[in-house]
């Protein structure tokens, strides 16, 4: 058809007009570090595995999870989830229940018998891991993946360290613990139990180990000098819980007082209740706000009938009578003695005042530096002695299982680099995906799904697990509450909101790219990206 000149035009011809030349800033896709990932002591790619879980790809999610942490079913129970404290979703409604999804994935993996990837090709390097707690297990796992041979030694009769001997079964069922440990051991690990290492240098030399990882934990309960009558039953919490774990619980009587304000104190008190104590009283020198134990643990303990004497110290323990001194907080929030006393009937006193590490195995080595009872290490967890690494409660840090898992991973990387004669170089950390980077409008309103709790009456009488798991439906829901902070989740917003059709959609899983021929640099894509995965950068003019 002959068309009139100029007034009638063939469609789409404007693509010859490259409006990209108008631009003074250009949008660029970025990956930012989600705050959950940033906060995870184990370095989990939480956003990454939630992304997989969102679409019901639980195995893929689990596999992404265990790239960093081989103990998801355990951590899904015992981790105090700093990730959730950091979660940006809290600014929308409530933090994502990351921990619950992690447990769901861990439990699902056990249920389906998913196993870890085959260990890497044998490097011929031999590594000694001392201590089979979370740090040691984590290091063992990562080292095996890297293809190193591992001997895992532990002084106890069973693997697990404080996971087994410090955490009561109502928080961590033994079947779960055993299953996840077994999966690691199944990677081909030489296990030596009931073996106490007395001299690390000797052990290393005799075993011809290329490197050693010390993960001996903090197994010694701190004692303070409390005047007590001979008949008065006093025990430290670590020993108490260890004995319970060995199914050889000590006789503490009906009235048990626990002294201390940490999670161990709560574990001890709650365990005492389950063992038949009618009164389980925690004595703590400061108030509830200052209590180091995690709030949800406190809440659960109170729910189980544990009581607390705030602002009190134990002065002396005289035959079934505990004398407490009242305290008050000074202007700086520190407790001060008041000189006022009161009495409390008690059959036994459990001291939960912290733990120390037994580092006698290092006494023969002058190079390894020990300060404040813990081993000083580099960022890759190496001590001053070449090839000797340390982590977990034995190294300076918060003493949590998750931190220990993270130490294990870092140590494994450090060891791997060491035995290869290389420097470990960690990748550049992405800029943090802070809440102000997000456009939270786009996220659907969805309050978090709470995990079911065991009925209170049953919690006082047995060691059944208190916190239930999520159903699949709930786990999916919870995973989908993830904002995917800083990481594109292919919501098509940039593709849709570009007034210049300058975003190219690359297909599922491949995200997008900008067509800078047409992008005018308006920045709407950046403003409307829900998760903050685009930034504007100035054009070079």
């Amino acid at each position: 058809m002959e068309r009139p000149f100029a007034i009638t035009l063939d469609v789409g011809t404007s693509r010859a007009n490259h409006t990209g030349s108008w631009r003074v800033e250009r949008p660029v896709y970025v990956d930012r570090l989600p705050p959950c990932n940033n906060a995870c002591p184990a370095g989990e790619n939480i956003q990454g595995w939630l992304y997989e879980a969102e679409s019901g790809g639980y195995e893929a999610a689990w596999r992404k999870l265990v790239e960093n942490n081989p103990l998801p079913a355990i951590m899904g129970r015992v981790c105090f989830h700093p990730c959730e404290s950091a979660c940006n979703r809290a600014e929308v409604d409530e933090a994502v229940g990351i921990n619950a999804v992690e447990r769901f994935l861990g439990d699902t993996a056990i249920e389906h018998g998913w196993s870890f990837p085959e260990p890497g090709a044998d490097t011929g390097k031999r590594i000694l891991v001392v201590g089979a707690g979370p740090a040691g297990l984590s290091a063992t796992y990562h080292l095996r993946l890297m293809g190193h041979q591992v001997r895992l030694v532990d002084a106890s009769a069973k693997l697990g360290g404080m996971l087994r001997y410090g955490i009561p079964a109502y928080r961590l069922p033994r079947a779960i613990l055993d299953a996840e440990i077994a999966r690691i051991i199944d990677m081909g690990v030489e296990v030596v139990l009931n073996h106490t290492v007395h001299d690390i240098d000797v052990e290393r030399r005799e075993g011809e180990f290329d490197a050693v990882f010390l993960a001996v934990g903090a197994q010694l309960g701190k004692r303070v000098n409390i005047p007590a009558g001979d008949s008065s039953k006093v025990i430290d919490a670590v020993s108490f819980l260890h004995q319970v774990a060995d199914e050889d619980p000590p006789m503490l009587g009906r009235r048990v007082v626990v002294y201390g304000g940490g999670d161990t104190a709560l574990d001890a008190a709650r365990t005492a209740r389950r063992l038949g104590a009618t009164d389980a009283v925690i004595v703590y020198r400061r108030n509830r706000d200052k209590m180091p134990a995690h709030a949800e643990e406190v809440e659960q303990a109170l729910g189980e009938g544990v009581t607390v004497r705030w602002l009190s110290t134990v002065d002396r323990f005289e035959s079934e009578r505990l004398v407490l001194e009242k305290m008050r907080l000074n202007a700086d929030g520190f407790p001060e003695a008041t000189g006022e006393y009161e009495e409390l009937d008690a059959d036994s006193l459990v001291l939960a005042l912290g733990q120390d590490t037994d580092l006698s195995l290092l006494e023969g080595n002058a190079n390894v530096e020990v300060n404040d009872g813990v081993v000083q290490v580099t960022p890759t967890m190496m001590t001053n002695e070449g090839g000797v690494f340390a982590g977990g409660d034995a190294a300076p840090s918060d003493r949590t299982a998750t931190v220990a898992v993270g130490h294990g991973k870092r140590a494994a990387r450090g060891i791997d680099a060491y035995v290869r004669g290389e420097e470990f170089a960690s990748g550049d950390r992405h800029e943090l995906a802070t809440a102000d980077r997000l456009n939270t409008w786009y996220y659907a309103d969805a309050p978090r799904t709470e995990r079911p709790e065991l009925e209170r009456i049953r919690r006082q009488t047995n060691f059944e697990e208190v916190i239930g798991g999520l159903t699949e439906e709930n786990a999916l829901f919870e995973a989908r509450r993830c904002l995917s902070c800083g990481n594109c989740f292919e919501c098509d917003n940039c593709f849709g909101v570009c007034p210049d059709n300058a975003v190219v959609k690359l297909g599922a899983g491949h995200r997008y790219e900008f067509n800078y021929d047409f992008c005018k640099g308006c920045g709407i894509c950046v403003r409307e990206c829900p998760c903050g995965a685009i930034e504007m950068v100035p054009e070079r003019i």
Partner: protein
Amino acid sequence: MSEQRVHFYQVGSFAVGNRLLSADDRTVQSSPHRTNSIDSGHRACQGCGEALGARYALDAAMRATNGQLLAVNATGCLEVFSTPYPETSWRIPWLHSLFGNAPAVATGVAAAMRVKGRSDVRVVGQAGDGGTVDIGFGTLSGMFERNDDVLFICYDNEGYMNTGVQRSAATPPAARTATTDVVGAEPGNVFGQGKDLPRIAMAHDIPYVATATVADLHDLEQKVERAMSFRGARYLHVFVPCPLGWGSASNETIHLARLAKETGLFPVFEAEYGVVTNVSPIRRPAPVEEYLKLQRRYAHLFGPKGRPDIVARLQGIADANIARYGLLPERDELDSREDD
């Protein structure tokens, strides 16, 4: 509000796409196969809301009509930036005649289709607010009154932007334009004037009238789809912020549209045969200041010499809209809606 049911997923139906939805439930704009009715290379300003609104609406109409669509365009920004010789941005059959006659031209096109028995080919007329509420009002009212089979879409950016930001009957009170400057006792556009075209359209008892913004794509597309399910005259009034005319950052276009709705200044609703059938409730209520402060056209209302009295009057307008359309339903009602 979209009637589309979205199984809960991160962004629900607020974002353009949703990788877990079935293709049928996704927005047209999420598809790499969308028409791109108005294509790259157009000469709209950076962050142009009208370019966006036109693509949204027409691509949706293209899907709704299975590609059997003819568009008629009034003079204005959309026309000028899309078809300067020798290049056109349109990928659909498109006709521009004059500023004030797009509705009538669309009537003619629809008549031609009817006489040729092409009931499958549908007609869209489109104009800015000037071409709709002012100079095109007569022909639009005629098109409505005759119930001609045309979907007329107004891209409302509240002024004559093509000619340099002058006042139209859609310019809101207090807003600065080149013909309502911020001088004198009542700076900016005067209160008590202006034309509420969606309500006027409803008064014609036409089958379908709806408002929408470029901030809620699912809603907009669903309305286009709904509009195309009717025969006869239909009217869609799309709120499209204008960075140039409003003095807003080019990246704030969608955000402003969202705020206009969330403040209640721009009520989003649907009406059939003259009766309101659906309103989009406010999801995150916001005071008008939040919206106004992002725009230089309202800058005279703020700062040391600000006019809180005028801001209060604008809030009054928003509140009146909220009351008139019931934009703030009881919270539990809103929740049950979300649960769908």
